[in-house]
């Protein structure tokens, strides 16, 4: 009889016949289902089968279909028609996670290019491929850097004072919390306000995610600046701050100007709003300096 064997051989889920034969043997089906459990962790759609039972219904339920049979039968299928039922890339609502996948469609080179462009006073950030990865992680890195280096600069200051022992310097966790609130609102909440202000005042529609890109990447110049803020001289800190702030401000204004300055009727309002954005950016930079990198 070919069904039963003494060896405890692990059957692979691909061996359909062998599995079905072993259905009669309870022990064999346990081995094959256990094997399927191990194999299913490799996340291949073909191997996602039900446990213990190789009946067609259960495995069909759990199988991710590789192709849609309806595609072949439906003669009216149009790949460009977004309303077609078989369209694979459906637009998800913005409260689902998969909606945001489109904003993570970047590669390392793209992110680095935008980081460098954010310091370019004439070109500004490229808005062809909107992404969320860059702004979010640049902001988070800056928060961590500011939290750590801000504490480091206060440590250096306490060393310079030499009034009491250095052990009196305390690590201030509030720097991290303040930094997160300040920077996350500047990059993610403030663009919403800017979007609506531009819409109502100068009738120009700027996508919120484009603004997130612009403001998020503009913070990337503050990363090396945070490191340079360790120099204890107050004068150098202010000079550094003004320099970085102006460069990034120009980059922000340039990218807005290059991409959205089309309407001829509302030009004055547009420029006034650009000025407002520049002022806000300058204020944020000053807050960064005052709250995190105090001088002696």
């Amino acid at each position, binding site marked *: *009889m070919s069904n*039963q064997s*003494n060896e405890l051989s692990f059957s692979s889920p691909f061996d359909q016949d062998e599995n079905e034969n072993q259905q009669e*043997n*309870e*022990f064999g089906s*346990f081995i094959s289902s256990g094997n399927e459990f191990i194999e299913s962790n490799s*996340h291949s759609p073909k191997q996602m089968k039900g446990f213990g039972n190789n009946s067609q219904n259960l495995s069909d339920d759990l199988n991710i279909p590789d192709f849609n049979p309806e595609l072949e039968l439906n003669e009216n299928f149009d790949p460009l028609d977004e309303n077609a039922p078989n369209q694979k890339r459906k637009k998800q609502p913005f409260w689902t*996670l998969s909606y*945001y*996948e489109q*904003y*993570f469609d*970047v*590669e*390392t080179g793209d*992110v680095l290019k935008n980081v460098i462009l954010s310091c370019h006073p004439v070109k500004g950030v490229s808005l062809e491929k909107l992404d969320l*990865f860059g702004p979010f*992680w640049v902001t*988070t*890195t800056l928060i*961590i850097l500011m939290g*750590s280096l801000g*504490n480091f600069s206060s440590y250096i200051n306490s060393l310079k004072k030499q009034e009491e022992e250095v052990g009196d310097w*305390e*690590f*201030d*966790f*509030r720097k*991290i*919390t303040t930094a997160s609130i300040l920077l996350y609102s500047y990059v993610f909440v403030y663009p919403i306000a800017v979007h609506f202000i531009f819409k109502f005042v100068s009738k120009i529609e700027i996508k919120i995610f484009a603004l997130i890109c612009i403001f998020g990447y503009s913070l990337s110049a503050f990363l090396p600046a945070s490191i340079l803020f360790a120099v204890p001289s107050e004068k150098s800190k202010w000079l550094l701050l003004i320099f970085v702030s102006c460069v990034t401000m120009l980059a922000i204004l340039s990218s807005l100007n290059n991409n959205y300055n089309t309407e001829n009727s509302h030009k004055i309002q547009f420029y006034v709003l650009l000025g407002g954005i520049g002022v806000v950016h300058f204020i944020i930079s000053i807050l960064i300096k005052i709250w995190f990198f105090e001088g002696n």
Partner: protein
Amino acid sequence: MSILEENKIDSQINDDFLESSLDEPISQTILRDVKMIGRDLWGPLIVCLILSVILSSKAADNQTQLIFAGVFVIIWFGAGVVTVNALLLGGKVSFFQSVCVLGYSLFPLVISALLCIFFRHIIARTVFVLVGFVWSTIASLGFISPLIPKNKKTLALYPVFLFYFTISWLILVN
């Protein structure tokens, strides 16, 4: 062996197995299943609690609660954000599995933190934290790296590095 003998051995194995899983009370089966899933999250939770307690014990008096809560938030939120980031970049990893791995990989840093309580000298602490950081990072990189498409590997792995860097630094300056 004759066929009869083969059948006999097989049915004995059958009986042993059937006895073991069907005879135990249902409560035991359920408990075992819950433990299998829940056990995976207890580990990171304990790790997180230990770290929060250690880091908040040495803080300034008015900040003890803030640091405790802050470390908790950083660990769980950080692990979640790193995982979501990997998922959004197209990585094929399950959310809970990744959070668990990130939590478990914190264990070397817990050891560093414990050592740092006893050795307050700056150089010793730096060495301990550095070793813990490298160990933790390599441990989780080994898990996440194969699951990310090739052109986005750096993008997915940088947050992992950042996550452990933050925690290492929190331990160091404590």
